[in-house]
């Protein structure tokens, strides 16, 4: 069964069957990364362009490595500098890049909706590598993969997502994926950072971390953008950590088998204590490994879909 779509823009748009296929394929790709020669010729001759309007070493490296392990040519373009200066519109930039005959364009942008905008006008497959506070589908997929791998089934799991839900594309992608698979999702954070009407997504909202964590199977801790404080969403980092930081005492409220996840990079001592980040419950490094496999799977499956 091929993935019959041109682009990967949001988790919302994917069916459970499609997600299953992606995760199953990713599972096979995990093995490739354990080989001595970690490279297969599947995408030989294809060109992947990492078009990053917002700096991100992790995600860009993961996509880059995924492409290279599949033998594609990978080009990184940091567009923030070039287009803004030349006063070129985003569509012009993208059209120019596509004129180089790219097969995939991986886009990261601080503005929501840019990948969708590009997908509408470009022939290349567009993969959203994070747009504003909208979506980060490959992160959502790798989180699903990690949870499935560790817990077997997602249905019925109690998942708590902690932090700045308002500005988080990771939270949005995670929530959509988890709800699709029947998890019981609770978001917790200061009400100033909870988006209006998020309950309609089928999640519970809690303002009190200790209450939300009781019996949790999974805790996804979001990265806190430190500049949110200056915008007045909360008074101080100290107070944020006091109310919503995950520490050992709080972790003890969760299920003994609880998994702690974080999309990285971590603000140690703010949203997550070091002992937990490096502790036995943490699957943060598995997330990174799975991220690579998921991104390989996306390239592979999209290259297949584009042939039809």
């Amino acid at each position, binding site marked *: 069964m091929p993935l019959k779509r041109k682009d990967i823009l949001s988790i919302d748009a994917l069916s459970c069957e499609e997600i299953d296929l992606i995760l199953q394929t990713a599972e096979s790709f995990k093995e490739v990364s354990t080989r001595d020669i970690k490279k297969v010729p599947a995408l030989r001759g294809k060109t992947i362009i990492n078009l990053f309007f917002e700096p991100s070493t992790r995600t860009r490296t993961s996509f880059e490595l995924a492409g290279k392990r599949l033998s594609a040519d990978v080009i990184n373009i940091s567009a923030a500098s070039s287009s803004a200066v030349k006063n070129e519109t*985003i569509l012009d930039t993208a059209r120019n890049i596509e004129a180089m005959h790219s097969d995939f364009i991986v886009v990261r942008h601080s*503005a929501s909706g840019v990948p969708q905008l590009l997908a509408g006008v470009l022939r290349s497959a567009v993969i959203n590598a994070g747009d504003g506070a*909208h*979506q980060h589908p490959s992160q959502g997929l790798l989180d699903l993969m990690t949870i499935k791998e560790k817990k077997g089934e997602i249905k019925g799991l109690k998942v708590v997502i902690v932090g700045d839900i308002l500005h988080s*594309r990771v939270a949005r992608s995670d929530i959509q994926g988890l709800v699709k698979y029947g998890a019981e999702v609770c978001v917790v954070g200061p009400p100033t950072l909870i988006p209006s009407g998020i309950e309609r*997504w089928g999640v519970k909202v809690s303002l009190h971390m200790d209450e939300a964590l009781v019996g949790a199977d999974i805790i996804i801790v979001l990265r806190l953008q430190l500049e949110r404080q200056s915008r007045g969403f909360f008074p101080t980092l100290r107070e944020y950590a006091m109310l919503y930081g995950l520490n050992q005492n709080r972790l003890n409220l969760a299920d003994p088998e609880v998994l702690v996840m974080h999309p990285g990079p971590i603000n140690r001592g703010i949203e997550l204590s070091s002992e937990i980040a490096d502790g036995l419950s943490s699957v943060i490094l598995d997330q990174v490994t799975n991220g690579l496999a998921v991104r390989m799977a996306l390239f592979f499956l999209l290259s297949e879909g584009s042939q039809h």
Partner: protein
Amino acid sequence: MSDKILIKGGRIIDPSHKRDEVADLLIEAGVISGISPSIAQPEGTFRTIDARGLLVVPGLIDLHTHLRVPGFEYKETIASATAAAASGGFTTVCCMPNTNPVNDNQAVTELILERAAAEGLVHVLPVGAITKGSQGKELAEMAELVSAGCVAVSDDGLPVMNSEIMRLAMTYATIFDIPVIDHCEDLNLTADGVIFEGKVSTDLGLRGIPSSSETVMVARDIELAELTGARVHLAHISTAGSVQLIREAKKRGISVTAETCPHYFTLTDEALRGYDSNAKMKPPLASSKDMEAILAGLADGTIEVIATDHAPHASEEKEQELDCAPFGIIGLETALPLSLKLVETGVLSLSDVIEKLTSGPAKVIGQKIGRLGIGDRADITLIDPDVEWTVKASDMKSLSKNSPFIGWTMKGRASTVIVSGKVLEGLYDGGKLR
């Protein structure tokens, strides 16, 4: 060309005279000289317009147009904007002062009027700034502005945040009996919001503008209108909360008037789903509950004016990420059919729609226009109410094409527009206006 025009057999709708009948209308020397069921052929040369099946209404008036002149001629010129206006059935447009430089002094007002006289197809009535440079700090010279030809003051686009300044402006405006038009928005509540805060902003991950951004300023302005006794006109009202506040204020006898725009009674924030920057404007398209309230406000007279908030932006400005694209859409060429749709959907009578586009706005600015009386200047719009047409960017007269209605099928269109007794022809049969 003859200066006598006989419009025969049209359905004349003139809300200010409560007239709605099939009759003939005679224009002589740019002025309406006769209306009666049957007017005999005048002496000498004259031109006859067969208006059977058409509506004959006062020329439409737009209280809220951004002509973009001076300073932003790449978005719109007076020639292109007034061509768009005529094409949409408008014979008068009131232009907002957020130009570069801001229309906060006599020189800018005169410049606009000179250019309008030279290249404008319809009448242009400037709106002056409330404060110098619309900076919200010091009052602009209102007496100068009024004597130069401004019919109202407004800091549209850069609303006055300081309530004391607003109080002083309103109080001062009572000298001239001009309306203070406010763009009701609390810029601090809007912060870096892009679209209406609600379901869609959460789904799309876009920063929201809460409806309270508008309503707190509506509430403030109502209180200040009561305090100062000024005539306050609230521009482009978009939320249920605002409609309720205005309705109550009117019951209390406060001199406040209100306008809305076709997009607020036609679209909701759902139009943003595809990240279409042509659905991005201020105030933002709101929820369906708000849209219902706007319709109710139009129906019960709480909102007496339909204005366009015609805000042209060049395609390279709109072709950006939604976060960066400027706020605003054009509206002169689509306002009439979208308003006529309210008749079809049973919200308003035909006469009510015409009133909100003619005598309604005329009353706000206290001008003797928007009516068909003997001796009145002959600004008349003939409307073909049944013609169906598709909105095409290539057909639009406006220099900018930032409309969410491109591709829509519309019903009803201005077929002939008469400005000061001069017939503008070929509005929709592929012909150019000039």
